[in-house]
C-alpha cells in the first residue's frame, strides 16, 4: 500500500472509531470523549508550534482563553448567536497568537518560554481586572440562545458529541494537510536547523509567526467550542495549568505526530480521572507516569512507534 493510502486508512479509521463511539459508549464516557476531542484540538494546535516548528511556548492558555472569551463574551455582551460567536473565538485566538508572536519570536529557547508565559499571565490578570466584562474569577454562563446553532443545544449529550466530533475531524484533516504540505516541510526545517533554512531562502521569523498563528487558531477554536459545549467561561482556563496541559498531552502522545495529541489527551484525561478516584495525591501518579515516559519513550508513545517501524506516520 502507498504511504498516502496508509495515512488515509489510519486517520480515517480513527475518525470512524470516534464517530461510532458515541453509540457504543455509555453517556459518561461519551461525554468524556467529547471533552477529550476538544482538548485534543487544543493540543494539536500546540503540536503545530512545538512538535513541528520547535516553538516551546508556555503561553498557549492565553490563546485558548481568547477563543473561549471571544466566543463567550460575544454571546454575553453583544448577544451574538453561536456561529458568529465561534468565529469570533477563532479569530481572537489567531490574532492573539500573532500579536504575541510579533514580540516573543524575537527571542528563542528559554527566553521564548518565559516571554510567552509572561504574556499568558498578563492575559489572566487582565481577565480578573476587567471583571465587569469578563465575569472575573467567577466567570459566566453561556446562555442557551448563544449555544444553539441550527436549533441544537450544544450542552446536550448528542449535539455536544456531534459538535466535538466535527471540530476534531476538521482539525485533524487540516493538520494532516498542513504537515504534508510544502509549508509543513518548512516548519520542520525551522525545528531541525534554522541557520540552514535561512540559507535556503526562508525567513525564519515569518515562518514561525505563521505557524504560531495557525497554532493560535486551533487553540482559539478549541476554547470557543469548549465554552459552547460546556456552557461556561471562566478565568481558570487562562491559568498556567492550561498552558502546561497541551504540552503534556503532546509529549505523552508524541510530539510531531498528528495523532499524538489525541492519544496523549485521552490517556492523560483517564489517568487523572482514575487516579483522582483512588487518591487525592493524583498528581503524584501523573508525575510518575511522566518520569516513566521520559525514561522509556522520550519521543512519546507514537514517536516511539514511528522510530520502531512506522516511519510513514505523519
Amino acid at each position, binding site marked *: 500500500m502507498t504511504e498516502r493510502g496508509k495515512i488515509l486508512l489510519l486517520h480515517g479509521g480513527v475518525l470512524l472509531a470516534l464517530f461510532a463511539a458515541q453509540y457504543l459508549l455509555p453517556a459518561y464516557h461519551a461525554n468524556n470523549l467529547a471533552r477529550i476531542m476538544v482538548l485534543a484540538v487544543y493540543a494539536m494546535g500546540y503540536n503545530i508550534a512545538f512538535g513541528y516548528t520547535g516553538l516551546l511556548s508556555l503561553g498557549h492558555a492565553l490563546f485558548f482563553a481568547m477563543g473561549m472569551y471571544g466566543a463567550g463574551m460575544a454571546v454575553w455582551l453583544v448577544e451574538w448567536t453561536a456561529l458568529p460567536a465561534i468565529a469570533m473565538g477563532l479569530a481572537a485566538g489567531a490574532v492573539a497568537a500573532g500579536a504575541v508572536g510579533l514580540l516573543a519570536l524575537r527571542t528563542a529557547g528559554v527566553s521564548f518560554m518565559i516571554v510567552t508565559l509572561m504574556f499568558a499571565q498578563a492575559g489572566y490578570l487582565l481577565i480578573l481586572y476587567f471583571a465587569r466584562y469578563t465575569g472575573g474569577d467567577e466567570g459566566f454562563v453561556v446562555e442557551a440562545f448563544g449555544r444553539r446553532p441550527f436549533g441544537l443545544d450544544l450542552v446536550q449529550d448528542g449535539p455536544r458529541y456531534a459538535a466535538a466530533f466535527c471540530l476534531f475531524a476538521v482539525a485533524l484533516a487540516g493538520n494532516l494537510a498542513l504537515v504534508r504540505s510544502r509549508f509543513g*516541510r518548512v516548519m520542520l*526545517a525551522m525545528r531541525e536547523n534554522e541557520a540552514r533554512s535561512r*540559507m*535556503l531562502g526562508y525567513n525564519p521569523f515569518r515562518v514561525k509567526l505563521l505557524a504560531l498563528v495557525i497554532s493560535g487558531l486551533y487553540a482559539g477554536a478549541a476554547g470557543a467550542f469548549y465554552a459552547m459545549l460546556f456552557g461556561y467561561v471562566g478565568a481558570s482556563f487562562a491559568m498556567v495549568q492550561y498552558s502546561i496541559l497541551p504540552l503534556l498531552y503532546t509529549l505523552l502522545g508524541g510530539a510531531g505526530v498528528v495523532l499524538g495529541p489525541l492519544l496523549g489527551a485521552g490517556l492523560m484525561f483517564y489517568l487523572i480521572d482514575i487516579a483522582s478516584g483512588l487518591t487525592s495525591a493524583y498528581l503524584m501518579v501523573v508525575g510518575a507516569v511522566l518520569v516513566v515516559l521520559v525514561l522509556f519513550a522520550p519521543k512519546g508513545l507514537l514517536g516511539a512507534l514511528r522510530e520502531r517501524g512506522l516511519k510513514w506516520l505523519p
Partner: protein
Amino acid sequence: MAALSETPLLEARGLTHAFGGLRAVDGVDLSLKRGEIHALIGPNGAGKTTLVSLLSGRLPLQGGLLRLEGEDISALPAEGRVRRGIAYTFQITSIFPRLPVFDNVALAAQSRGARDLPAAVAEALDRVGLADLTAQEAGSLSYGHQRLLELAMGLALHPKLLILDEPTQGLAAGEIARFTELVRSLVPGITVLLIEHNMEVVMALADCISVLNFGRLIAQGSPEQIRADAGVQAAYLGGEDAAG
C-alpha cells in the same frame, strides 16, 4: 555594447567587517565574472570565511557595497540574497539530519518555487550521484555523501552564484577527485566561488584566484600568476625571514 555584457555577476567594493578592534575583512574589492570558477585562498585566519559571510549575508556589512548583476544588494538579508541567486554551502556540513534526503533537497527546490518537486529533487541528486538514496535519513549518510547532499541542496536552488566554503575538507583522496570533476561540470551555467585549502584542487579548478591575508586582498590573477607572486609566497611561508 560589449561592455554591458561584461558586467560582473557579483561586484564588491570596499567590504569591511570588524570584530571588536580586529578588522577581519578590511576594504576588500572583489569582482566575479559570469561562468568562472573563482578561488579565494589565504592562510588560516586571513578572513576568508568572514568575507564570504559578508557576500552571503550571514554577517551584515559594516562598510562597502555589494552588487549582484549591477543591482545593489548590500542591505538584503541572507534569505533575500539566496532568493536572488546566491547559494552558500557551509564549511561545517549543515543539513537537516533527521529528515530524509528527499526533503533536504525539496526544501531548496521549493524555495525557488519549483513546480514539480520530485523532478527537481531527482535532477539535483542525479547531478551529485545520490539519486538512489532519496528515502534515507540524511543524518545516516556517510560524511562524503553528506557533503554531496549539501552541494545538491545548493544546486536545487538553481543559483547564479554558488559559494563553496571548503568543500573538500575531510574528504578522502578519491572523493576529492570526484568532487573536483563535479565542480568543473557546473560552469559556465553557474558561477562558483571556491574557498579552499587544498592547493591541488584550487590550481586544477580556478580560472582566477584571489589571495587574502590579514583581511586584505594581496594578490589576484590566474593560477600561474599567483604561483609566481612573491607576496603570496611570503604570506604562506610566514614572511621574508622565514622564506630566507
